[in-house]
């Protein structure tokens, strides 16, 4: 099996177990306010980092570049500000990157 298959299966099962754990463990575990706050902030931190890496990291590796992806992200921000639905944001952003590359 390839490394990708291992990642798909292990992370898939792991994510299920994280859900099951929530329904199964006593809620004292996260009663501590600092723990609860950290757990609440982790998704925002990871998603912000994923946006950054996805948009700014050079395809070849360890460098930052501003290219059509950054322009597409600006389009995505605009679409989110006017409360466009998720699919419109994602494919609208993709279309603007594709258009820019055609020019």
């Amino acid at each position, binding site marked *: 099996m390839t490394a990708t298959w291992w990642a798909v299966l*292990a992370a898939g099962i792991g994510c299920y177990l994280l859900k099951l754990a929530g329904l199964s463990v006593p809620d004292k575990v996260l009663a501590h306010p600092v723990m609860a706050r950290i757990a609440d902030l982790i998704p925002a931190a990871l998603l*912000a980092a994923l946006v950054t890496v996805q948009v700014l990291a050079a395809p070849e590796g360890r460098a930052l570049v501003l290219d059509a992806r950054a322009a597409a992200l600006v389009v995505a921000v605009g679409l989110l500000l006017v409360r466009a639905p998720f699919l419109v944001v994602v494919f609208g952003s*993709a279309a603007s990157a594709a258009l820019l590359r055609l020019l």
Partner: protein
Amino acid sequence: MTDGHDRRTVVRDSLGVAVATGTYGLSFGAVGVASGLDVAQTCVLSLLMFTGASQFALVGVLGAGGPASSGALTALLLGTRNTLYGLRMAPLLGYHGWRRAVAAHVLIDESTAMAVNRPDRTRARAGFWTTGATIFVLWNLTTLVGAVAGEQLGDPRDLGLDAAVGAAFLALLWPRLGTPLARVTALLAALVAAGAVTATPAGVPVLMAAGVAVLVGALAR
């Protein structure tokens, strides 16, 4: 009941949310194959992992050239928020044994949101199952359609699909920026990740951002 929580209203509202959300699978399927996964791997993620942000994270890290272990770890870290949802939903749903095991699979952002504020168990369960089961079916169907279509469409860069991943993450992040603390955390995490891109292997910058959440969460008053 006229409080907006009547069972039929709960089911109708849940279906609305579920249909809108279920179709995101289309973008996940297309992005999955654009990131180098095959159709089967993309579909197994939707069937088995079934939590959108984690799925996008795994394919995003792999697509950026990160090792499989970093992709898996990022997906798991994002999956921890479902544990929090479970802690809140457990007393509301009141399930044990196999019912709990099945309910856990559809414990996601939307099924929690449509159940957590209901005044009693019957209506909480109605919102939870209507949303969770409908999204599960639609998400998996649209993932397959998106993945097969994505494979037929040629170079993903020509279609801007590499930019679509960033837009998807931003759309998932957007509703989480409601508090100043969350906005500061997101900004710091983005800066740390941008700095780390130039100094660390792919996959590491995103994991370092989890450290930002720990620091801000521990230091905030």
